């Protein structure tokens, strides 16, 4: 476990934390969604760095022979296909959540007039007091 062998993971972790920080620290809803998409892309990067084999090429067979009797050359080192498959799903989940989040932001802007977290909470509290009385 040294810097030379594990620095990929540490950089990816730093990226994840940047994304997470944006989601929690920023008050603007659109900015939170940007932070969320950064957080999800960096998780995808974690999976991809796991799947890489040193010197391995993309998991698409290098074919030998012509036409029909072409056979994949199996002693070429391929990187692991499974993380790539899982990450196709994660990218799609990320874009789906983002689209839904942005639709909610539009409705919040139309009904509250703002997309700032603290202003929304303050308006809710004001509405609550008016209902109480």
């Amino acid at each position, binding site marked *: 476990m040294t810097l030379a062998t594990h620095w990929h993971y540490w950089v990816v972790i730093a990226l994840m934390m940047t994304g997470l920080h944006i989601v929690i620290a920023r008050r603007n809803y659109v900015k939170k969604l940007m932070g969320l998409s950064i957080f999800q892309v960096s998780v995808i990067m974690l999976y991809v760095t796991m799947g890489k084999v040193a010197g391995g090429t993309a998991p698409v067979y290098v074919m030998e022979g012509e036409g029909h009797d072409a056979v994949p050359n199996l002693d070429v080192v391929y990187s692991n296909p499974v993380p790539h498959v899982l990450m196709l799903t994660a990218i799609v989940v990320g874009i789906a959540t983002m689209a*839904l989040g942005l639709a*909610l932001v539009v409705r919040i802007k139309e009904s509250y007039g703002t997309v700032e977290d603290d202003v929304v909470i303050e308006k809710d509290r004001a509405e609550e007091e008016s209902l109480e009385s």
Partner: protein
Amino acid sequence: MSGLKAHFPVLLVVVPLLTAPLLALIRQKQVARALALLSALATAVIGWGLVIAAREQVEPLSYHLGGWPPPIGIEYVVSQASAFVVAIVSSIAALGLLLGTRETRKEVTEGQQHLYYAAYLLCLAGLLGMAITGDAFNVFVFLEISSLSTYSLVAMGNRRRAFSAAFNYLILGTIGGTFVLIGIGLLYQVTGTLNVQDIAHRVQELEDVAPDSHNLTLLVAFVFMIVGLGLKLAVFPLHQWLPGAYAEAPAAVSAFLAGTATKVIYFQLLRTTVVFFGAAHVFGALRFGTHVLMPLSIAGMFIGSIAAIYQPTLKRMLAYSSVGQVGYLTLALSFGTEAGVQAGLLHLGAHAVTKAGLFCVVAAIVAGVGSNRIQRLNGLGKRMPIVAFAFVLGGVGLIGVPGTSGFVSKWALLQAAFASEHYLVAGLVLLSSLVAVVYVWRIVEVMYFQAPPVDEKTTHDNLAMVPALILLGASVLFGLFPDQVVELAADAAHQLFLEPGSLPPLPTGGHG
């Protein structure tokens, strides 16, 4: 029909999942609602069929999706515990659809009701898929299906607070989902496989090799899975989103979510601790149960119930009481014994039925009185006697008075506590039930002992009361004749604790 019986595990998820796009094609509201109800009922029948099938065999049913044997392809595993959860979830979903009549017509814009029912069925399919899948990553995919449809269903509340509540739920839910994804990734990196049984077996090997020195990556994977699921389950410190989401959603959606969403995620938490990482390691070496889960659940029980006392509206009160009840569930798990898991399963069933029934009653109240603010409910006993009586029945179930399902699960919880010598915890459970009495009595007092407003006219929507009465009737029935279900929960808990056998060796080449 017997041919189809073998395919029940996958049909359970495929029937609602494929009905949803059909609904998106059909524009008329009545046809869409009828088709949705039909598919939900079919799913419930399949669910109960799975319970019977799971009871007949000792080891869980296994269904190879895509024709590939387990570690290669994805596998559906129907154990007695998952069959029990699936049956409850699908039945509550079917009843929830019965409820959504007049109310959804007012909530959802005129031409979009077929999409509302499609989102409802997608959420059901996501929850069921998550409960019976035997593949780690498949859990994440179906978790996302149910979460996404839940966000849009909560936002159907159509008040501006529903949008901000749905948005907060989306942000916290997605962070939770991504934590689970990180956990699954680290787990995959250490074990090299995604099949649940394979993972459990390899984790067992890793732990036997070095019982005292914990593999750090495995430990971090466990922490991330637990925090992610805790966020989705609204365990005490991570529960901010739940009151807003349940209170602002339309009552039919709250009824469905309260009865099913947290329950399936609790079952996944149960499987993660007991099956994935092995109960001996998690509760023994890590002392996760006693040092982490128990204090959190006790805090959750008390804070949830106490907060419920001060809520202005019925829905918010029931939402906070849900946070409290989740505390009971996690407390049952924290004992780390078979009895504890059995109590957890029983409480899962009892709370699902009772809370869904209560939300159906609230739907009837909102339809009748127009608002669920507690000040507006004075004299409800006289205005809507059946509804008031049903609410009392549900409240009593929440407290755990003998003769209702709440009592059976609380009794099992106390027995589990005594079995593992946590006498103080047993006392605290009784104490928190008293707190529950306070917030139920507060409503009863408003409904029965205050004069009804003279001018108020109330419209009766007795169609909304049918699911409420069925659910609360089931709660009482389960309370009076509990032995059938208690025995099912005991066998299910026992099956979960079995040692994970290694999978049959992979066929070399050739289609398995």
